[in-house]
């Protein structure tokens, strides 16, 4: 069977999405590193590079619309374009959170160190791993993994609650770290939101694979 015109377009679209996914993953990782290593130059770079991600989003949007209009995809092809079009802004928002973490890091890096006392890197690790698995599951169209990742979000929520307790306690015990701790709390919230967004990506994976909308359904 020869390749259809649409196959070439879908391949390009997939590549663009995966590039966006990889770049987003890296942004989250580097934002956290700027925090852990108190590296403000790195934080500034993450903030600056968010522009690239925004441009990628626009490019994918345009291409999705073009494929819908000109190729008129059906069945799996249609679900693929819809999934890409819906996952793209989710990735862009994750990248926004990475930039926000970097901004927090610029402030925190000028404050007394609070960081070693909390499990933020662990949270970031779970979020990063979830994102990576979600993107892999998109590529390999693995509904099982996608559903596992959705369940994994609970671990982040749990970690968030722990971090929250710890940081509020720190603020009470040691008022001199209040500003830094408050911004760390923002970071924790950003990571928690990233977990939610990864969950949304996985829901789109399931739509792509099983043609079922599982969003807003409590049981997976």
């Amino acid at each position: 069977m020869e390749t259809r015109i649409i196959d070439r377009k879908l391949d390009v679209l997939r590549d663009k999405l995966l590039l966006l996914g990889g770049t987003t993953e890296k942004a989250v990782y580097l934002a956290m590193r700027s925090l852990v290593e108190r590296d403000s130059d790195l934080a500034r770079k993450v903030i600056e590079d968010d522009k690239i991600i925004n441009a990628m989003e626009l490019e994918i949007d345009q291409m999705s619309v073009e494929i819908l209009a000109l190729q008129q995809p059906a069945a799996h092809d249609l679900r693929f374009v819809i999934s890409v079009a819906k996952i793209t802004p989710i990735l862009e928002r994750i990248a926004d959170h990475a930039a926000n973490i970097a901004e927090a890091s610029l402030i925190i890096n000028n404050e007394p160190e609070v960081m070693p006392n909390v499990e933020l890197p662990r949270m970031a690790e779970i979020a990063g791993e979830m994102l990576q698995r979600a993107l892999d599951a998109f590529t390999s169209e693995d509904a099982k993994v996608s559903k596992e990742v959705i369940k994994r979000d609970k671990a982040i929520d749990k970690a968030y609650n722990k971090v929250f307790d710890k940081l509020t306690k720190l603020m009470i015990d040691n008022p001199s770290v209040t500003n830094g701790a408050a911004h760390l709390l923002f970071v924790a919230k950003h990571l928690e939101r990233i977990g939610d967004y990864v969950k949304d990506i996985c829901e789109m994976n399931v739509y792509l694979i099983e043609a079922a909308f599982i969003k807003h359904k409590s049981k997976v």
Partner: protein
Amino acid sequence: MGDKISIKNLNFYYGKNQALYDISMKIPEREVMAFVGPSGCGKSTFLRVFNRMNDTIPYARVEGEVKIDGKNIYKTKTDVVALRRKVGMVFQKSNPFPKSIFENVAYGIRINKMHSGKKDLADRVEKALRDAALWDEVSDRLNTSAFGLSGGQQQRLCIARALAVQPEVILMDEPASALDPIATQKIEELVVELKKKYTIVIVTHNMQQAARISDKTAFFMLGKLIEVNPTEKMFTNPDDELTEDYITGRFG
């Protein structure tokens, strides 16, 4: 809504050649059912089964059951003329008679003696032309030749001709395949409008057209019914891989 047509274990033969294999399906009342599938898969043959148009082919043979309103139309007692009035047909190539616009529509009313006088005949012609969304375009030239109409208008004239004898089912075999996008859109709008009153079965090679106007779609291949499903399901998540391959252009 109930089923208008119900087909059970239908086999169809042209002489020794089998064209349809063990087809069972139901066609709901006042819905649009689209038949799609590769050329030669038997769509037109199947369509002609519903008003026994295949009877005109001496070596054709039908097995199985086709019920319309619960009555098997292949029973010997069936009044085939009445059946064809009830189940009208519109073809790919518009085929008006070499007569005036008025006479084209009046023809079926006259031979079926459905009118009670000249005025009633004129009223029925007008109604059919209105229902076919053609009246406004032809009301001032009813007595001119039907061949003076554009292809799209001729096709709507044929629909008016079918409507004039008050059918319940309308069969359409690629009714818009020779029309430009605007004329096609008019036919499509008309189909959607007509389903309020009629059961419509339409054969089309245009997948987007099937997607736009039908409630259910049936996919055929090599004389077999592969899948029938609500159109929205068929075009987003078909059950059968063959259907997926066909509607996404994976084979030809």
